[in-house]
């Protein structure tokens, strides 16, 4: 393991290939994300999850909207589509209804899914369309320069809230559970293994599933809020995160300052007939479908 010779103590063996390279688009790498950003870790967990589940890669589809997280669709080597801003979920709904054999995943950011695409999220979850939504929450609009978004915590500083945000942020797991998602969980990018297991579960589950990933954004959120670089943000998660699967909805509010905990876990795991199942059932009952 360690090559002998002066100055070479402890040197790690170097290679050119990574075991997950066949799931990535090699010509697109290295990706554009900043050093210390959590998006790469989230993408690794996703790559590992789609490799481990029993669904062939040919049947997997990855969709994303606009933003830093939106780049993921361009890096993962499955059928993918980079949609217009906020419209990843309507595209996914259409895709799933047109070809129910596909396993459709939407991987996008908090600004894309909950600001401009908020209404689409509500209605897809209400209909219980069989898609998986993975939202990477970094509390701001990272790509455009760290502006305030719908998930920016109260008092957090961003480039458009110099005195701190005075708006209440979304409580995303509460929102998703209230409108009928069948599987809701939240992890930080430090909880790699839990996150990967959750993704595997979500991919195999029928119905609308939602995973929120809390991710460091050293450039847009860490710096103005004195949380430091990506590494310090992960240390903050290690110190403050609590796994609590039966947490009350109020506890899931994120403050990202002081002694307030970051509660993570699997919050909802239920069954509900999906849009396509209900349609089939009703049409059969009326004799309109064989």
């Amino acid at each position, binding site marked *: 393991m360690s090559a002998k010779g002066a100055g070479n103590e402890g040197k790690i063996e170097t290679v050119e*290939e990574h075991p997950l390279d066949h799931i990535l688009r090699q010509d697109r790498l290295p990706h554009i994300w900043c050093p210390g950003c959590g998006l790469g870790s989230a993408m690794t967990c996703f790559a*590992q999850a789609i490799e481990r589940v029993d669904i062939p890669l040919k049947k997997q589809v990855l969709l994303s909207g606009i933003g830093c997280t939106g780049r993921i669709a361009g890096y993962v080597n499955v059928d993918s589509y980079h949609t217009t801003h906020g419209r990843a979920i309507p595209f996914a709904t259409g895709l799933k209804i047109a070809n129910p054999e596909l396993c459709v995943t939407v991987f996008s950011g908090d600004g894309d899914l909950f600001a401009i695409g908020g209404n689409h999220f509500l209605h897809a979850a209400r209909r219980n369309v069989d898609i998986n939504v993975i939202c990477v929450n970094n509390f701001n609009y990272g790509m455009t320069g760290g502006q305030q978004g719908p998930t920016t915590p109260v008092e957090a500083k961003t480039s458009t809230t110099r005195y701190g945000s005075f708006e209440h942020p979304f409580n995303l797991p509460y929102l998703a559970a209230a409108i009928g998602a069948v599987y809701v969980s939240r992890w930080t990018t430090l909880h790699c293994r839990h996150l990967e297991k959750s993704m595997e579960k979500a991919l195999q589950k029928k119905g609308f599933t939602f995973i929120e990933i809390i991710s460091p954004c050293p450039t847009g959120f860490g710096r103005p809020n004195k949380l430091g670089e990506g590494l310090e943000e992960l240390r903050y998660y290690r110190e403050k995160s609590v796994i609590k699967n039966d947490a009350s909805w109020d506890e899931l509010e994120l403050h990202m300052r002081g002694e307030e905990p970051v509660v993570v876990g699997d919050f909802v795991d239920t069954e509900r007939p999906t849009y396509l199942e209900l349609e089939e059932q009703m049409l059969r009952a009326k004799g309109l479908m064989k």
Partner: protein
Amino acid sequence: MKYWRRPLDKNKIKTPKGHIYVIPDRCKGCGFCIEFCPKGVLEESKEINRKGYHLPKIADGKEDDCMNCDFCMLICPEFAIYTEEGE
């Protein structure tokens, strides 16, 4: 590791050994693998890659400590490090 009693199957159970590999030109020096390795195997080296970031190296006296848990691979945002079962 200290046991309060000797496990009955201690002779049969073998701790897995891992072998670490790194792809130097992908590393962006975020330090996640160094900080979060459960066995503290890695540390920052003086060596830099083509982009000028410091690569991880194996800390002194930790050469045989890697247990192939793969956590460095999962947390690395750049697909730049992984482990494999070693001898």
